[in-house]
């Protein structure tokens, strides 16, 4: 489904980033990094809205010829960015939303781990497996 999934810290450094191994990893890193511009823009636009009513899902951040980049931001300003192949037209907004929700739940589990230091790179195997399951459905 997704070709790249990234978790980005509040300070905009990557906590976790994974892309399909078949493709150039660097490209996705650049893409996710650039998408942060749009995330920032959307967050600041949203800042006016009440916090509890805020929608975590940011929607399509920016489309490129080949990929669509979707964003999601947690209340603690941790960003999830998902890159989806443009040709994958089967993925609708709702699916993306549910994927993000799954990602968020898994991320929450990671944070609940008392041995995890918030701000460190995520190395949880459970999280990794979940991300893999979201990416594997591509092929």
């Amino acid at each position, binding site marked *: 489904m997704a070709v790249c999934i990234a978790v980005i810290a509040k300070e905009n*450094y990557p906590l976790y980033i994974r892309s399909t191994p078949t493709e150039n990893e660097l490209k996705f890193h650049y893409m996710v990094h650039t998408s942060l*511009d749009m995330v920032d823009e959307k967050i600041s636009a949203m800042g006016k809205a009440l916090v509890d009513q805020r929608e975590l899902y940011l929607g399509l951040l*920016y489309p490129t010829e080949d990929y669509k980049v979707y964003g999601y931001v947690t209340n603690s300003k941790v960003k999830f960015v998902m890159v989806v192949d443009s040709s994958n037209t089967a993925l609708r907004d709702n699916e993306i939303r549910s994927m993000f929700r799954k990602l968020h739940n898994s991320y929450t589990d990671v944070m609940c781990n008392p041995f995890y230091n918030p701000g460190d790179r995520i190395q949880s195997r459970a999280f990794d497996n979940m991300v893999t399951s979201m990416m594997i459905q591509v092929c």
Partner: protein
Amino acid sequence: MIHLESNFVQFKEELLPKEGNKALLTFPFLHIYWTECCDTEVYKATVKDDLTKWQNVLKAHSSVDWLIVIVENDAKKKNKTNILPRTSIVDKIRNDFCNKQSDRCVVLSDPLKDSSRTQESWNAFLTKLRTLLLMSFTKNLGKFEDDMRTLREKRTEPGWSFCEYFMVQEELAFVFEMLQQFEDALVQYDELDALFSQYVVNFGAGDGANWLTFFCQPVKSWNGLILRKPIDMEKRESIQRREATLLDLRSYLFSRQCTLLLFLQRPWEVAQRALELLHNCVQELKLLEVSVPPGALDCWVFLSCLEVLQRIEGCCDRAQIDSNIAHTVGLWSYATEKLKSLGYLCGLVSEKGPNSEDLNRTVDLLAGLGAERPETANTAQSPYKKLKEALSSVEAFEKHYLDLSHATIEMYTSIGRIRSAKFVGKDLAEFYMRKKAPQKAEIYLQGALKNYLAEGWALPITHTRKQLAECQKHLGQIENYLQTSSLLASDHHLTEEERKHFCQEILDFASQPSDNPGHKIVLPMQSFAQLRDLHFDPSNAVVHVGGVLCIEITMYSQMPVPVHVEQIVVNVHFSIEKNSYRKTAEWLTKHKTSNGIVNFPPETAPFPVSQNSLPALELYEMFERSPSDNSLNTTGIICRNVHMLLRRQESSSSLEMPSGVALEEGAHVLRCSPVTLEPGANQITFRTQAKEPGTYTLRQLCASVGSVWFVLPHIYPIVQYDVYSQEPQLHVEPLADSLLAGIPQKVKFTVTTGHYTIKNGDSLQLSNAEAMLILCQAESRAMVYSNTREQSSDAALRIQSSDKVTSISLPVAPAYHVIEFELEVLSLPSAPALGGESDMLGMAESHRKHKDKQKTGHCMVTTDHKVSIDCPWSIYSTVIALTFSVPFRTTHALLSSGTRKYVQVCVQNLSELDFQLSDSYLVDTSDSTGLQLVPLNTQSQQPIYSKQSVFFVWELKWTEEPPPSLHCRFSVGFSPASEEQLSISLKPYTYEFKVENFFTLYNVKAEIFPPSGMEYCRTGSLCSLEVLITRLSDLLEVDKDEALTESDEHFSTKLMYEVVDNSSNWAVCGKSCGVISMPVAARATHRVHMEVMPLFAGYLPLPDVRLFKYLPHHSAHSSQLDADSWIENDSLSVDKHGDDQPDSSSLKSRGSVHSACSSEHKGLPMPRLQALPAGQVFNSSSGTQVLVIPSQDDHVLEVSVT
């Protein structure tokens, strides 16, 4: 508000829509028959037929929307009105044709006249016309929509054509547009768009529609969107002809959508949709596997982007555009991207320019553009012209590409999309690198790198660094290139080969023979190697001058290959110690108890830089002690990394600026060479011999590889070692808490050698104190310790004594060692001052003694012995004072029994030790003849325990007349009870004292008799006290004083007696004192009677009878006082010789004494009283008691319970 526009067309049968008509715009909505006929004849002859025919035609085409208009002219009417007034033409027509729909016939009267009637008829006509037209329109539109839907439902049927349907729905859109219902019109196009997209998706999923294959024909033309015309008829026709390609269809659809959106004032939606469309088209072509010549799509996208942008610019003003950059910048960026790829494709980016193949491709691409469209032909900046120009030459391409790129970067920056701007900048840098203009590329790469570093994106950092390295290499920025190379060589995101390559670059440079010898390339060390930990040996990091210090560091090499380092240097900052406290020996032991390992925090760069930009506070306790006495002056908390926390934020972002690294050239350097640093951890040991005393702080760590120096500018946390020098010192202290005189005591000698080396033959010369012996033992050994208290050796001590000097030869010891040995010393007990306590005899003395005890407690008498010691390292003598305490305190007392005399000596042990006393002697030092001291002590050996006393008693016997005073010396041998055997014989403890007036002169005897007739004394009843004072000897030497008077060979002396009852048992009635003249002769007796009253019942001791010598006035004594003061203060004068603490009960009796005394000596100078020495008076009745029984009439019984 609906706006309906209608055309009036002359009726032709061909114009009537046939069955299945799809055109709505040209549709005849209302048929109107106009007639001017007012003549019935004419009507019947021609008009009626014509009307019928028209009606039939309409019926045949099932058109029910018609209207008959009869125009009446007054002029014509006038002639005929009277003929057929009731059957007018109107009525006839109504009758003939509008039998059910009478409203389908309208009369227009005198249309050209200006009368109210005319006006009225016009209004009626127009209302009718509008109503009917709208009715018809609604009906037909509804029918059309129904038809359209029906047609759409048939889309699964074979033979269904999208183009056909497209035209139908577009007709609807046109109508809506015509009605100015743009929103509805747009919906039609959006529906078409969605339908088409769905087909494409389905096609991609394998569910192909036949008609779609047509759209899959190879792309031959890519001339971009055309948005300047409201309807691109050319494309529309091609769709109608079913000749349109996918791009044509999409272009046409979008152009229509664009037009409508612009009508709706939504230009930014155009921009947004345009981007979607372009992406979508590219995807669709890919999905449908349409063959597209390389570059064709890029051209199409580029042209389209610019077309959209220009179209938007055309309908908005500058300010609007500027505030909506966020919507358009995507198109700019897309266009830039496409132009770039076109440039690469056509060889316009390469250094050499395009080759023939590239040129062919360019020609093909330009051919696909076709001719410029007429509507843009006059525009100088049309997308077509731009693309053509850009592809025409390398220079033109560069110009256009740079324009676009700069514009895009500027726009991104202006709306705060820095990351996107940097990304475009990186593309630009890549372009510059291709153009061999690295100086221009560098700024973009640096900018992007800074951004990635700040946000900690490892892969982009690595990639950008790689580009930067190439750029710097081209620019010849050797230092920067080497620095970047070192960073890359240590970058784990690169492959091993790449890392080795960059490492080799550094090594190659380093091994080049430098044309400028001595020139150093200074690079920061972090990327090269990291300092992990540091270990001191000795572990307290304190070393004496001349000592060897080892510093072992662990360096973690980041390089992929072993690197041979010529030398590793630690620059050390030296500061002279100011604190004298630090030189002391105790500082050495207290200072730095850590294990000597300093761990350095691992370098966290490059991963999350943003996190470590603010390091954690490093807080430490701080104690500042006074240098003199080591007492605490101030305390507090200090933050050691203030410089890190408070520095400006900007400077923290300049992470790769090599300018910050400077080589410090210090005089003090630790060096280690040569070293090969293997990848990973390496142990490097520095060895140094301490020279100057002071504190050495490790500042910089440098590793040199050829002319390349890797420098760690600050070693943090601060690492220091200390070098100290120490003066030789001698320290003498008793082993026990205090030294006791008289017995051997151990004293510990500590020699701290400091910088002095004890040579063979060096000795301590002790000048002997007179009363202190240094006992030489055969088996005394000296221990030699190192400064860290490790025992290094022990040696026998040689002690040579002469009468003046004791020489202790020290064992050979190196500098900075400690020699310890013990010596036994003996303080000889010195004889205390003679007769110091001679006048403290008898009662007065015992009283004094009591007070003494309270005051001084158990303080021992101390004696100080000063020993001056000559040390080999100094020309000055060291004087050491040793204080010895005498363990005993001795008191003596003279006891009498009648004329027999006893001497009691009390020895009190004040020390903590138990002693054994032996051989007690009391000798008369004056050696009087006929005087004998008979010991009454039975035991010769007697233990005396700590804090206990032992008494000795001797009886004094004489045969001749005893001397007035007696000098005695008491001596007793003592030895510690615990010690079995002492090597030396100890001197006995001696005590000398003097006993005076020990011979008894008077015997005082007091007796109380009950009142006459009574058997016992009763309380409250007066009893008689009889005092008998008897002289026991004839005139003696001691009697010769002022009180002695001589008359007729008889001597007499004046005595004063006083009866005092201190315990308030008795009330003395009447005179309690009196002066008597006592003859100085044996057996002379004086009897005194007094009345006393017992106050209590029971066995009461007798009241005291005191005897004083009554000395006549002596001028020398009374001259201070004049007579007046005597009278006034006579009570004071009596108190002087009376009791110190008068009791209230005796006040009365004493008052009588006063009066007696004062009456007797009135006007005379005051005589003096002198207490008789205790030895001269013997109170033979002391201790006797008298039984007093309570009086019978005593109603009060006093019971005291104790």
